[in-house]
């Protein structure tokens, strides 16, 4: 048995990484970076984690160093946030296209301007096309568990794609709660040692990081895409294995709550899911058939699963801390595409909120369900900003 600690989301993620035993950690420890890499450097210092900690001079270098380490077959970790992720952006497709199974924690924080360091999801959602798997977690326990599980998924021979695990800034990263910390032997039983042929090796030299001309380039992207499409099977396998060893399950690519007979479903991402469940319980007690569908992976996007789960609903709403300026929330775009691809026609609303760290309250979520039930001519609703025209 492990132990139970009262720690933050950052601490929980660091504990999960300690248990995953990466060979190399590279990081640039300055705002908007979170203390996850600080904790890891302390673990390396006190030798509870035997890892090479590379203190680099920028996020761009952090990802470059991670790619270099991964290219010799090392299990590798880095973490970033907000503008730091954007500074890394040039390197992200190199890691993904090189099929290096790096794991990165991103603390979801707003991007400039107006600048602030509070939480929203615009940083990671702007990088959906980088070729990385993108996972969003809800609480500190899921953070620790996904730190472990992300390596299982990334390094799986059917996948070999890097994983970005997203934790809502502050609301999850800086909030303390009770977390069960597994033992090292449990973690070792779950996560196999990383062995790969995709590395520089003097005994088995291969060509890596190469150029490919127009005649063959597209094939590589199709292989990468197909690997992403296999993730859903690997997630299922990983969750079953996880449950056997740790006694906890986190669901598949999505996790529904009281959605089986739900007429109105709110689709969520990350830590806002918990409060939405509480609202569902209250409305259910009053006889209103509502449910919550948490999307755990935005890449690959579980379009069939989502469409199948919401097809019986009278209306659905996508709640996200994101706006793709000039159109709509990006998760909403993806949800609507999932509906159309799978022939599901349900009125679909977009609730945009929490930008720049604005609090989303219990009452706000109730109002979202109210809009789904009453119907609304305008499909895009900004939480707490009823009349957009007033904002100039």
């Amino acid at each position, binding site marked *: 048995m492990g132990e*139970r*600690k*009262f720690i933050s989301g950052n601490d929980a993620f660091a504990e999960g990484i300690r248990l995953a035993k990466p060979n190399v950690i590279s990081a640039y420890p300055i705002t908007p970076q979170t203390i996850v890499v600080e904790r890891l450097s302390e673990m390396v210092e006190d030798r509870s984690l035997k890892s090479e900690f590379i203190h680099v001079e920028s996020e761009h270098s952090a990802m470059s160093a991670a790619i270099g380490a991964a290219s010799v077959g090392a299990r590798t970790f880095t973490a970033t946030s907000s503008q730091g992720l954007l500074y890394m952006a040039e390197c992200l497709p190199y890691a993904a296209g090189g099929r290096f199974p790096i794991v990165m924690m991103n603390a979801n924080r707003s991007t400039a301007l107006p600048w602030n*360091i*509070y*939480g929203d999801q615009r940083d990671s959602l702007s990088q959906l096309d980088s070729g990385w798997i993108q996972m969003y977690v809800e*609480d500190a326990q899921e953070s620790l568990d996904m730190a472990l599980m992300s390596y299982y998924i990334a390094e799986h021979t059917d996948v070999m794609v890097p994983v970005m695990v997203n934790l809502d*800034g*502050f*609301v*999850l990263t*800086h*909030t*303390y*709660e*009770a977390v069960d910390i597994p033992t090292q032997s449990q973690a070792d039983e779950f996560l196999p040692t990383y062995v790969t042929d995709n590395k520089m090796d003097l005994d088995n030299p291969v060509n890596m990081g190469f150029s490919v001309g127009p005649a063959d380039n597209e094939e590589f992207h199709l292989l990468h895409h197909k690997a992403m499409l296999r993730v859903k099977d690997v997630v299922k396998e990983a969750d079953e294995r996880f449950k056997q060893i740790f006694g906890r399950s986190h669901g598949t690519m999505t996790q529904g709550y009281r959605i089986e007979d739900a007429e109105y479903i709110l689709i969520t991402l990350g*830590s*806002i*899911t*918990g*409060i939405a*469940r*509480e609202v569902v319980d209250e409305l259910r007690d009053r006889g209103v058939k509502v449910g919550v569908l948490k999307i755990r992976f935005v890449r690959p996007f579980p379009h069939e699963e989502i469409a199948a789960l919401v097809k019986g609903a009278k209306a659905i709403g996508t709640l996200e801390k994101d706006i793709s300026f000039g159109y709509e929330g990006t998760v909403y775009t993806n949800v609507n595409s999932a509906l159309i691809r799978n022939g599901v026609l349900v009125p679909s609303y977009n609730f945009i909120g929490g930008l720049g*760290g604005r*609090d*989303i*309250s*219990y009452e706000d979520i109730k109002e979202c369900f109210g809009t789904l039930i009453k119907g609304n001519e305008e499909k895009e609703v900004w939480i707490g900003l009823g009349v957009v025209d007033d904002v100039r």
Partner: protein
Amino acid sequence: MIEIRWHGRGGQGAFTASKLLGAAAVTDGLYALSFPSFGPERRGAPIQAFTKIDDKKITDRSVITKGDYIIYLDETLYSPAAKEDLKAGGLIFVNTKDIDRYRDKNVIAIDADSISKEIIGRAVSNTAMLATLIAHTHIVDSESAKKVLKNYLPEKIVEKNKSVIDEIITIERSNNND
């Protein structure tokens, strides 16, 4: 769910107090969340911290607008309007040198700075205010609060803070019996 809101200035340890309370609740077998008012940390700037305690898992991560208990580590942040943020039957705790100024059934005043200064050597009153809260509300076991100090405070001040908790529990409980 019991909701506690802490008011202090950066450096006074309001967030540490909220963590200690949450950790003590978890030690008692309850569930808890502790978090600060989010943002850059600046010494002296007003900050809030929040603790939520329940007998089931807490998933509401939003800030506390109405609290069961509101605690002021710094008297200058208190105003009588704070009572509007209390739930029915709630209590406010104020750290003050002038206890007589707070003759009010909803307000508990204590000179936590003096007690802390005497025992710890510095007027850092976060554990003293935590102990005052525990003495009056029994929301966690004071032994649990003492037990978790070592996880959140520098080693050299753990024992002194245990003494602060003991001292305040003794004073406040004997006052209650008067």
